[in-house]
């Protein structure tokens, strides 16, 4: 009942992008960034009255350690006709992702001990530069936009994080780190670059949470 799809063509590629975004939200952090190395296989099943379900086999690589790859399988279910419901995504990672415990702790302590709250903009800059000390922030922006991308994807969209326009750390009385991002998301089909305001909470053990996100006003 599931139809084999050519991995090089857009329907499979779009579903894979959703799976990767979801995984970045779930497993990403300041010390790790996953990206798709290869979409090995894709199948699609059209489920009456429910929607379209994609079965994917992916090979992912760690952007900070390109020699390490990990395989995973994913299922992405786009709900029928629904513009308000996020796709259901399940991902199973085969094997181990690189442990980032130490890097995470170091980052956490560094940010917690800052006298002034961190503020930065234009990551990367126009020339693609990311200062090394801001790379963890860039990766956390991937986590935050991973959530937004997952929540807002349809079979007719393919989102990527184009740039972190602005990021501001907000000191909290609890143990989470909070970053308020303005990110630019590039949507491939419409070619629009859309500003989104996203709040990210992150903790080395507890991981990430996005308590709020919204498309920012037009005219930026």
């Amino acid at each position, binding site marked *: 009942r599931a139809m084999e799809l050519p991995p090089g063509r857009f329907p499979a590629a779009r579903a894979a992008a959703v799976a990767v975004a979801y995984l970045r939200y779930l497993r990403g952090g300041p010390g790790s960034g996953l990206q798709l190395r290869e979409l090995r296989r894709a199948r699609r099943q059209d489920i009456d009255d429910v929607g379209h379900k994609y079965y994917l086999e992916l090979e992912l690589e760690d952007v900070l350690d390109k020699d390490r790859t990990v395989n995973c399988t994913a299922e992405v279910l786009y709900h029928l006709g629904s513009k308000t419901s996020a796709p259901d995504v399940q991902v199973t990672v085969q094997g181990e992702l690189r442990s980032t415990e130490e890097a995470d702790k170091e980052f956490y302590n560094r940010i917690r001990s800052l006298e002034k709250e961190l503020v930065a903009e234009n990551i990367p*800059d126009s020339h693609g530069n990311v200062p090394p000390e801001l790379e963890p922030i860039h990766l956390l922006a991937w986590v935050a936009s991973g959530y937004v991308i997952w929540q807002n994807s349809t079979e007719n969209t393919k989102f990527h994080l*184009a740039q972190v326009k602005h990021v501001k750390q907000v000191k909290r009385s609890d143990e989470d780190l909070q970053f308020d991002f303005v990110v630019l998301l590039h949507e491939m089909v*419409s070619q629009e670059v859309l500003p989104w305001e996203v709040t990210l909470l992150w903790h080395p053990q507890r991981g990430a949470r996005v308590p709020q996100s919204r498309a920012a006003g037009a005219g930026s």
Partner: protein
Amino acid sequence: IQLDFWLAPHRLGRPVDIRVPFRSLQAVKAHLEASGVSYSIMIEDVQALLDEEQREMLRSSRQRSLDTTTFNYEAYHTIDEIYNFMDMLVAENPNLVSKLEIGRSTENRPLYVLKFSTGGTNRPAIWIDTGIHSREWVTQASGVWFAKKIVQDHANNEGVASILETMDIFLEIVTNPDGFAYTHTTNRMWRKTRSKHAGAICVGVDPNRNWDAGFGDAGASGNSCSETYHGPYPNSEPEVKSIVDFVKSHGNIKAFISIHSYSQLLLYPYGYTTTPAPDEQELHEVSAKAVAALSSLYGTQFEYGSIITTIYRASGSTVDWTYNQGIKYSFTFELRDTGRYGFLLPAKQIVPTAQETWLALKVIMEHARDNIY
């Protein structure tokens, strides 16, 4: 107090220069005044001077290079720098390279095409354009590298030298100069032209939806505020019309390659219809070879196929028009990367991107040369 003595005290009656951290300023002033020691402020804000020095250093490192040998191919350049590069290249190689002005942009910037030719009259030709979408900076930067590469190959009698024996190469590096200037001054993410048409609320037309092939069909937008706005009518954009006029009057272009970024794709017609192009099989085979050549250098993986099956439906696109004009070898590239940096590709990837893309371009050019039609 952390006083930093730039001219230390060493004799009575001699001045002392001190750099005072901001937080100690009040205390130091109070102390000097209370002690009756006169002082004057030589530099109000040392940091400001340092910042200005940094900016100046950056500016001077971008100083105009004197020739195409010292030109920095590993950096992104402004439109003036690229136009200056073109003039230098022509001046250094007057027997091979000439600069043609094929029109003017909406904001009256010249639209320049470099012609590489070893002679003949109206030889069969290859057209390459970069930068039609202004935010795709790695493409204009690659175009600059291609120009230099053609000249080098010719000088060393290798690579495309053999192609230049029987064919001409036309290269338009800054195909959308108004948009490109805008990405430098105002909005790095600007894609379209900068035209303002009567009745349109927003500025700019997507120059890759403005061609007369399925114009206005699904795959473009009629809303001027959209990134894929097709414009009021085909060829409404001077950036597009100038190429149309050039192609028609030249009449002997055999391969047409339009270069974009990002996504790592090699695409052929059609974008506006699911009907396969009559030459699809041949175009698919050439694409396979081109992609393999590209990948051989650094392992960069490209997908390939028709526009509509590989990326999305797009109407009014460049290579659909050129193909329908009879230019069989019509291709669109989407260069690095696949989304990690997207449009903001780090400058250090310019040269590797240009090098690998060049290998694919050579496959297409050689195929065009060896398959006369």
